[in-house]
């Protein structure tokens, strides 16, 4: 269907002197039929990127193209995109069916169906058959969100854009809607850009994702890669729980390198030969009580019981540490990791 390409997209607000930069030179390709997620903390530029794709904002520089067709200057109503907002933005003075059918006034329903059939089809797709006559304020939050999705999909857009569509819902509902969204997306094979600040959600639904910070792309890749091999310190700390340490290289023996952090020596693997300082991260699940190398004793500050595991926040050598244990710890707990379980990130 549609491949989306952003080339050198920048967005500045205000005049040059006192303006703020929302996006600086973003290059991105979203493949045909892909579920692509933009994730980052608030103010990182992910929503601005989405709005530039939809045509609600014109980039200051750079270009947005759909399947090679330049979109600069094309108003949103002629871009053929479906947008779902966090606030649902349902038209409160129209029924559910009127909401879903609104876009069919401007674009022919696909596959030779008429408007009425298309609305019924979409309501069925989102499990809201028979709700067409209701008014949006008679619906629950999750139902409203599904109406918004059906409305966006009704004219069979080339692209589906979702701006934090689940943030207003509670956690359990969010999970079930997420599965439903994923099912619909893969059924329709529609190219989808999903914006969220929730990194867990981003890892769970995406084919690929882009982590953003300060108007820049930090890393683009599939979830496993982003989680397992964070490219930057920001990604390492933002995606999932992580422990990042800065250290100085001491001595190399074969694959193993001895580094020093605050007077304590760690053994790491595959440190680049020319590095004198390194930053490495160790996921909480890699820090285990059973490991006999790189052991540290952590003073426990808080323990959160999560069911199968316990998340422990503690302090070692004046450094915040997060652990994942199987049982509630005492006042202190000693853990370690095997060389090679760490991952090197850019030194700050």
């Amino acid at each position, binding site marked *: 269907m549609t491949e989306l390409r952003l080339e050198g997209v920048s967005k500045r607000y205000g005049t040059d002197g006192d303006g703020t930069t929302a996006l600086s030179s973003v290059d991105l390709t979203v493949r045909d039929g892909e579920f692509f997620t933009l994730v980052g903390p608030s103010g990182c530029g992910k929503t601005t990127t989405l709005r530039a794709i939809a045509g609600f904002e014109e980039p200051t520089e750079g270009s947005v193209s759909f399947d090679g067709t330049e979109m600069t200057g094309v108003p949103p109503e*002629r871009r053929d995109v479906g947008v779902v907002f966090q*606030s649902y933005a349902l038209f*409160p003075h129209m029924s559910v069916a009127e909401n879903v059918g609104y876009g069919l006034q401007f674009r022919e329903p696909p596959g030779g169906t008429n408007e009425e059939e298309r609305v019924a089809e979409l309501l069925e797709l989102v499990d809201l058959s028979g709700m067409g006559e209701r008014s949006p304020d008679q619906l629950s939050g999750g139902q409203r969100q599904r109406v918004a999705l059906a409305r966006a999909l009704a004219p069979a857009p080339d692209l589906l854009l979702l701006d934090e569509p689940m943030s207003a819902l509670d956690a359990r509902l969010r999970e079930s809607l997420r599965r439903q969204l994923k099912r619909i997306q893969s059924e329709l094979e529609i190219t989808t850009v999903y914006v969220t600040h929730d990194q867990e959600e981003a890892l769970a639904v995406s084919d690929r994702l882009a982590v953003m910070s300060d108007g820049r792309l930090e890393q683009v890749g599939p979830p496993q890669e982003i989680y397992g091999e964070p490219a930057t310190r920001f990604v390492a700390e933002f995606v999932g729980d992580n422990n990042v340490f800065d250290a100085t290289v001491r001595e190399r023996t074969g694959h193993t390198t001895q580094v020093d952090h605050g007077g304590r020596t760690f053994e790491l693997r595959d440190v680049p030969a020319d590095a004198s300082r390194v930053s490495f991260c160790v996921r909480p699940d890699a820090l285990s009580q059973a490991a006999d190398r790189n052991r540290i004793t952590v003073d426990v500050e808080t323990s959160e019981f999560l069911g199968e595991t316990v998340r422990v926040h503690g302090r070692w050598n004046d450094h915040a540490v997060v652990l994942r244990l199987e049982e509630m710890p005492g006042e202190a707990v000693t853990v370690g990791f095997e060389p090679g379980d760490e991952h090197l990130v850019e030194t700050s």
Partner: protein
Amino acid sequence: MSPPERSSALDSVRHWLERWYRVLECLRRRLERRALWLTALATAAVLVVMLYLPVGVVFVEAVLEEGSPTLGHFADVLTDPFYVGFLADVVADPVAVGSHLASLLGWLGAVSVSLSLEYPIPGVGVPVPWLAVETPGVRMGLFGFTAYQAALSTVASVALGLPAAYVLANYEFAGRRTLRSLTILPFVLPGIMVAVGFYAMFGHAGTLNSVLGVIGLGPFAFIEANPLAIVILAHAFYNAPLVARITVAAWESVDRRAVETARSLGASERRAFRDVVVPQLAPAVLTGALLTFIFTFMTFPIVLALGGLQLATVEVWIYDRVQRLDYAEAATLAILETILSLGLTYAYLRYESAQAGFARTGSTSETEPLFPDVRTALSPERLAIVAYGLVAVIVFVGPMASLVLGSVTDGTGFTLRNYAFLLERQLEGTTFQTRPLPAIRNSLLFGLATLFVAVPMGVVISVLTVRAGRSGTVVDTLAMLPLAVSGIVFGIGLLQGLVFGVPLPGGWRLQVTGAIAIVIAHAVAAYPFVTRNVSPLLSSLDPAMVESARALGASRYRALLDVELPLIASGIVAGAAFAFAISIGEFSSTVILASGSESYTMPVAVERYLGRRSGPAIAMGTLLLAVTAASFVVIDRVGGRYEL
């Protein structure tokens, strides 16, 4: 034709029709895409020609003397003690600081303060300590007097409005909501009608004298004895509800939990009120006071009808100059007045926007029943409320009731003479006389025409300003100019500019006269009220709704029609009600533009009748009241809600 021939002929016709349909559809789409900007351009054109041009004409008139620019007119006014009082000396010789200080000190030295025991109630020997401050007379001049009466009116309005706000915000009683929404009503009542109402109440043969006559007192010449007091009371009639309205809104938005927090932290009820509630009310009261001052500074029909030239304010004097065809002086005064009122309005807008962050939602304060049982009803507080209620009834209901009553009585008893006079005038009056039916017809026609111009203008300005950020405030300020330019100034501008004609290059003249000029004047006066009613609703709409519509394929204009307009309908209806009521009651510019025997409206007719006999004027005023009330009942049925 054979059947196949016929069908091919039909086919070609259908093809032809389809082609045309496509062309038209394409045209319609193009037009639709630009519709918002076209309407905006039309609005801008109307504003430039009908608002800025007239004001500009007045300005040019004030700085031109026989074709060459001069500041002489301003110098003449600013150094004339008649206009600016004691400030004339200061303006004439601003460098002589020493002598000005000396005269100020001399004046301060002559102020005497005395404390004495007085017996204010005749026949009762209760002494009351009486503080008297004697100040030597100050020559205030026309501007000084205008400000003085505005200040007194502001004090009276706040004094009368605050208790109403207190009762409306804190007590529950039957009709509270109705009363609360009625507080907007006086503001749009025709000034000349209110003046006649006060006349019917306080005049020689008025209701108050009739009531007093029953107990053997009077008649008193209230209006003749103290016209200023009656004028101020009439101003309070207008503005006290405004003060009350703004204050109630602030009072209701005070978060009850903030008061409860203060109480739990150890503040007494009184202390919590002082520390939590009062600081949140003060901005609202100040806003109301500032608005009242601006409105009463520009007062016209009330003073003209109740005080005449004896109490002339700047506005009345300008009108008088226009009547005497002294346009240069009128224009100079008009410009000075506009500068002052613009400055005040700017202060108001600045203050209002600084307080904008104050609006909050939260659990609103609780109201308690006004009269739960007999024992509470007799508590001092409730008795004070009852006493205030009586005063309020006299001030607010009295004049309107007197108007109706006065139209069917003549000091001795029931009579239909006043209406008979109107009927007779209608049937037998000559064309140059002011007849009632044309006045009613003109008022209604102008009102409807005003709706059609003012509502689209107001809505478009709202749409453009609400989402435009910083540049939006500029547009907003420019568009709100009519609130700060008095009807008289505007009337002169229209008269001198469009009615007399503006020469255009190429020998053309831009000339607008009579009914059209009046409708324009009304529309310009009315559209800010549409904007004020629509903007809050518009800015509370989720912008994502318009964006959703656009992503689904709707043009900006279609999104406006399909999404925004239906959701702001109640504001538009309320704005339309205002526009209609403003047009029906507009007096200042209409009286200048209504030429002799045609295009006069009901308020103008009232004023013309009042010049000769009060009876027919009161009857005409009652008709005006009926028409205004009817228009509001209609609007209320349609479901308007009022904002200001």
